[in-house]
């Protein structure tokens, strides 16, 4: 549980009856950043794949060996020029959202809810057994279980990497030190591509979990309140 837990009551005359419980899970800043990031990420991936379509390879141009043929209908921008406009516009929204989120988490102390630390390691295997192998449901002590913390901490790390690799690809001369850290321009480009797939993997798992955990849980990322939490 995190934050305020309350009873929701319906009063008729003298009697008050508790009809539900609710917990305030997600502060406003977290919710704003979550949805701004979801939109930005959607645009970054879509436009990024359109950019990739222009030269879908990591080798020489002569001869050109394409890695994969990503369909145009699942890309944003319509053509390379359009895709670059989307990508180089939304990158600022994506970065700003990330910075606001990280700043908020650190300065409010709310990061403790999300950050995976050594103390969470013992809880990982019981959680894996519960999620994947029908094991018993471990007792919940905090808002996020160890697997969730692992996922969200990794996702934040991947977000940071997506920006770092992106900056190295965007400015391999002005940020030459960054490109060098990654093994050079070619590696920066390839890592940027790989990190995108890792993020997509996270998003897929995240969406599955959101669906499995029901409407009330989903609504908590909109209003902050989760009704009838299943603790």
């Amino acid at each position, binding site marked *: 549980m995190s934050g305020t837990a309350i009873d929701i009551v319906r009063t008729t005359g003298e009697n008050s009856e508790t009809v539900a419980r609710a917990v305030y899970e997600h502060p406003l800043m977290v919710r704003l950043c979550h949805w701004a990031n979801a939109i930005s990420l959607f645009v970054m991936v879509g436009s990024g794949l359109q950019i990739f379509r222009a030269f879908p390879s990591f080798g020489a141009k002569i001869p050109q060996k394409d890695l994969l043929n990503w369909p145009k209908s699942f890309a944003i921008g319509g053509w390379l020029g359009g895709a670059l406009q989307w990508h180089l516009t939304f990158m600022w929204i994506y970065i700003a959202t990330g910075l606001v989120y990280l700043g908020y988490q650190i300065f*409010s102390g709310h990061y403790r809810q999300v950050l995976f630390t050594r103390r969470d390691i013992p809880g990982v295997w019981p959680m894996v057994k519960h999620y994947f192998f029908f094991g018993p449901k471990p007792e919940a*002590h905090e808002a996020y279980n160890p697997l969730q913390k692992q996922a969200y901490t990794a996702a934040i790390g991947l977000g940071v990497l997506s920006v770092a690799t992106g900056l190295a690809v965007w400015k391999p001369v002005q940020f*030459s030190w960054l490109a060098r850290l990654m093994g050079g321009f070619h590696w920066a480009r390839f890592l940027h591509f790989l990190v995108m797939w890792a993020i997509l993997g996270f998003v897929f798992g995240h969406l599955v979990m959101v669906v499995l955990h029901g409407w009330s849980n989903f609504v908590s990322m909109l209003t902050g309140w989760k009704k009838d939490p299943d603790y």
Partner: protein
Amino acid sequence: MEPENDKPQAGGPKREDPKTVDPNMAAPELEESKIKESPVRLKPVQPVMNARQFSRVSRRELLKVAPVLALGAFAIPRFQDSLLKKGLGFSDWASARLFRRAHLAQTFADADLTPFEKFPINGYDVEDPGVIFENWTLTVSGAVQKPGDYKLEQIQLLPRVRQNTRHVCVEGWDVIGRFGGARLADFLAMTGADTSARFITVACADDYYESLDMATALHPQTLLCYEMYDQPLSRKHGAPLRLNIPTKIGYKQAKYLTDLKVTNVLEKVGYWEDQGYSEFYGL
């Protein structure tokens, strides 16, 4: 086991007493009047909210998230082009701020060079606009003290620089080539150019056209290039003169130069930029 004893904790943090709130977690601003102490004494004391109040609070919290919908403006056709243009313009502005004239692009050993046969040729219109070399001159105009037609021999009198640098195409590929020529900065000095002007513009034999910010034009690795791999430029690679700018994307490195102007005013920026690509595109 006596039932009054607490069960031993399974480990990990204690389940929170519902009344105490972790001070690190910000609670929403609930109006004091809406929270009452529970009248039932035997239960632990728990904040309580009327169902209707809860709906109101939920709705208010939902409205607070609504500002995110402002991003939806990008989906509206009427605003989309202008928003994207502004976004790209901001990126270009940031790029210009990040450009440092003293910072050099990476240079490479001869062993790292892409073989000449594997150096791709991108034409804009034709692969060979049929330049006649005997008559060729670079026509210089604009804010210069010595405008007029410059022959290749005059450009070749300036100190020759040879550099192995990365050529990056906007498509996504890159190669390492060997380029030779005169520093554009030296040529501008020779023509008595006003280096406080903002731009250089160039025109080409195949009707391609480009522009360059003055800071990049004066960068030590920006060349009026007339050689590749220690040979005079071939027809397909832009003979007799092209730009080589390792701090810029490939499409700004125009081939088949015929005219060069020093100016503060840009009527058009470049062939690809005027179609929507980045105007500064520094690497």
